[in-house]
């Protein structure tokens, strides 16, 4: 069972909910894997504090000249949709930050002068947090594309047990890379115009990817009360609401698990657990 926590707007509670659910279900005896796919700023580790950490580099393929010269025919440049290869008289020049690593230029090169090497794009971290399996991917600073790293993370996740993924916010390629393959997507939102605007986009994304989604409304007592009506009109299942609570904010700000200090958060997490186990 893979549960992915996503949101349109950032800062609505993905990490609060995903780490809390992971801890709760792990304590209850489920075999839990927590994976932080918010690769530009992963912070699940702040709360779950993994130990026995092992790190490895993640690479994507990058074309390189393996012969010293070529005839400059230009087929590689013509093929590349991303303008990542330009063909000079006697060589091809590759722009790594534009390359999507498809390998097409290698295939079209009639002289076999192109090969591939790995280019580091990020770090994969594995460890343990209590009885939980902890995973996290961290994108290198300055790296523009995060989807390949997220795909490397999600493709390494176990097929069994409860797998909880903390996705990046938004609805971009990187979010979709984390959401794809989910059995359930939990969309965290808040009842503000910004939160609702982006929630609609996020719902559209889950529908386009054909994955079922439920909504958790965080800071439910702030903002506009008519938001909940709007959610129902859209046919969305609101699984839980969490009020704006000082105890949660204080624990979170200290990197502590708010689960043990907030009964309302606990109730929301228990609703999620029931939905997952049903």
């Amino acid at each position, binding site marked *: 069972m893979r549960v992915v926590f996503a949101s349109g707007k950032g800062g609505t509670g993905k990490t609060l909910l995903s780490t809390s659910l992971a801890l709760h279900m792990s304590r209850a005896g489920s075999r839990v894997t927590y994976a932080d796919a918010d690769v530009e700023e992963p912070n699940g580790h702040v709360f779950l504090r993994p130990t026995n950490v092992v790190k490895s580099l993640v690479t994507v393929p990058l074309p390189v000249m393996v012969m010293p010269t070529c005839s400059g025919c230009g087929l590689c440049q013509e093929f590349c*949709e991303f303008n990542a290869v330009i063909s000079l008289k006697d060589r091809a020049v590759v722009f790594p930050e534009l390359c999507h690593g498809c390998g097409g230029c290698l295939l079209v090169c009639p002289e076999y002068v192109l090969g591939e090497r790995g280019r580091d794009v990020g770090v994969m971290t594995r460890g343990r947090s209590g009885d939980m399996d902890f995973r996290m991917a961290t994108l290198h600073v300055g790296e523009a594309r995060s989807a390949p790293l997220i795909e490397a993370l999600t493709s390494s996740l176990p097929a069994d047990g409860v797998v909880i993924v903390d996705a990046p916010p938004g609805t971009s390629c990187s979010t979709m890379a984390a959401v794809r393959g989910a059995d359930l997507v939990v969309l965290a939102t808040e009842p503000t115009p910004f939160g609702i605007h982006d929630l609609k986009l996020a719902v559209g994304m889950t529908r386009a990817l054909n994955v079922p989604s439920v909504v958790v409304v965080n800071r439910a007592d702030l903002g506009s009360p008519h938001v909940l009506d709007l959610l129902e009109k859209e046919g969305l299942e609101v699984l839980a609401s969490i009020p704006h609570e000082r105890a949660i904010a204080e624990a979170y700000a200290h990197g502590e698990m708010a689960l043990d200090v907030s009964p309302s958060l606990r109730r929301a997490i228990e609703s999620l657990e029931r939905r997952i186990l049903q």
Partner: protein
Amino acid sequence: MERKIAISIQGGDSLEAVLDPRFGRAARFLIVDEGGSVLEVIDNGNVNASHGAGPATASLVSRAGATVVISGRYGPKAYDALHAFGVETWIGEPDRKAADLLEDFKQSRLQKA
């Protein structure tokens, strides 16, 4: 051999045209010789490219035979690509006419990017 000079312009097809200050996403290029004859006008198909407009535009002007470019700003990838093609990059002030920029270039009054 006379050098061919590519000047990025916002529109038009003569030396009266005004500089387009963005190289990679310039609307079009005037290809002129040092005598001031317009040899060719090229529309830049990379204006709305989602990725890599710089290298693609560099390739476009190089293929047109230009070894000198006068434009406003060059992105880092456009700059690298132009230099890989052996094309010189010069900076023209925005809002100036191609004719004046060509004259400035010939009088060595322009700065290299």
